[in-house]
């Protein structure tokens, strides 16, 4: 029992153990929630809410009226849970970064490649976020909503997405890392 608790509190689990938990989460979503997991959809619902407050006329279109109506959806609640899950996981291993000095740019490998400046990290994090979300829109979901949720039900779209993602991810890493790849 003690050793189980010690393992659960570890900073990193075996990816197989964490993957089993992820798989159970995927089952529970369908079984208890009658829903698929997803993250990018929640951002769409939230962007609709914010957009309607800022520019009601522009956000009164087909997409926000019928395809992805704004609101606090199942996916938004799930996303709030993900936030607290990250918090609980890090708290259990004592690796929370709230209030810590390096919270703005914490990855040593990033610093080795791009330098220690936080603004560079923030710029790329922001641009990456825009690209990721727009790409998820085109594909019809992200890593959780399409790759995992689609893949577990053997949806062809999921495997096309995963294939594309690894191909361009590898190529991009090669270009960014150059000789250090």
């Amino acid at each position: 029992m003690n050793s189980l608790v010690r393992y659960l509190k570890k900073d990193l689990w075996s990816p197989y153990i964490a993957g089993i938990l992820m798989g159970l989460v995927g089952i529970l979503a369908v079984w208890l929630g009658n829903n698929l997991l997803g993250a990018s959809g929640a951002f769409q619902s939230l962007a609709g809410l914010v957009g309607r407050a800022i520019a009601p006329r522009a956000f009164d279109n087909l997409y926000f009226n019928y395809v992805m109506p704004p609101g606090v959806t199942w996916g938004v609640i799930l996303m709030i849970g993900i936030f607290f899950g990250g918090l609980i996981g890090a708290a259990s291993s004592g690796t929370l970064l709230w209030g810590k000095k390096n919270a703005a740019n914490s990855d040593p490998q990033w610093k080795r490649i791009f330098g220690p400046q936080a603004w560079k990290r923030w710029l790329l994090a922001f641009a990456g976020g825009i690209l990721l979300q727009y790409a998820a829109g085109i594909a019809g979901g992200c890593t959780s909503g399409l790759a995992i949720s689609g893949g577990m039900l053997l949806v062809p779209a999921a495997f096309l997405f995963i294939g594309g993602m690894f191909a361009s991810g590898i190529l991009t890493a090669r270009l960014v890392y150059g000789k250090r790849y």
Partner: protein
Amino acid sequence: MTTYVIPLTIGVLFGIALNKAGLTRYSKIVDVFRLTDMAVLKYMMTALVVSMLGLYVLRGLGLVTFPSVPATYIVGNLVGGLLFGVGMSLAGYCPGTCVAGAGEGKLDYLIPGILGFMVGAGLWGLTYEQVFPSISKIGNYGNVVLPDLWNISPYLAAVAFTLMALVLFFLIDRAGLHRTEKQTR
């Protein structure tokens, strides 16, 4: 009340899994693309095997019905995946892992990350009518799953997928099918 408790609980477990697998770290994500640390692939494949076997068996027992599955439109799924991979390799996260990382207190995830996703979501919603109908027309198979498309038993497909995953795990862990990190200082 239960409408909130269930997704909230599932979300918390989801976030814990992402944190414990190390997927809330830039290095873990980019290193699977450098092929030096295959944890992300092992995590994804294990999750797929567990949930695939579980859900098809539960459906066979009549305990669950599947929600509407994501649509397949070949070019859009593939192009979206290609763009997604670029973003993931650069930023070192995807929408879900960014939110979990934000919960850990990573400010680059919490502020520019989430802001980026919100801006991207606005842009997608505002340009949807111009982009989506044309791209989703090509090679559109609708909301289909492979067992139906190929007319094979879903159990056979799930078992075949599981065997493929086990072979992949064996190749990575035992046959060393990955690159090793170069010693740079």
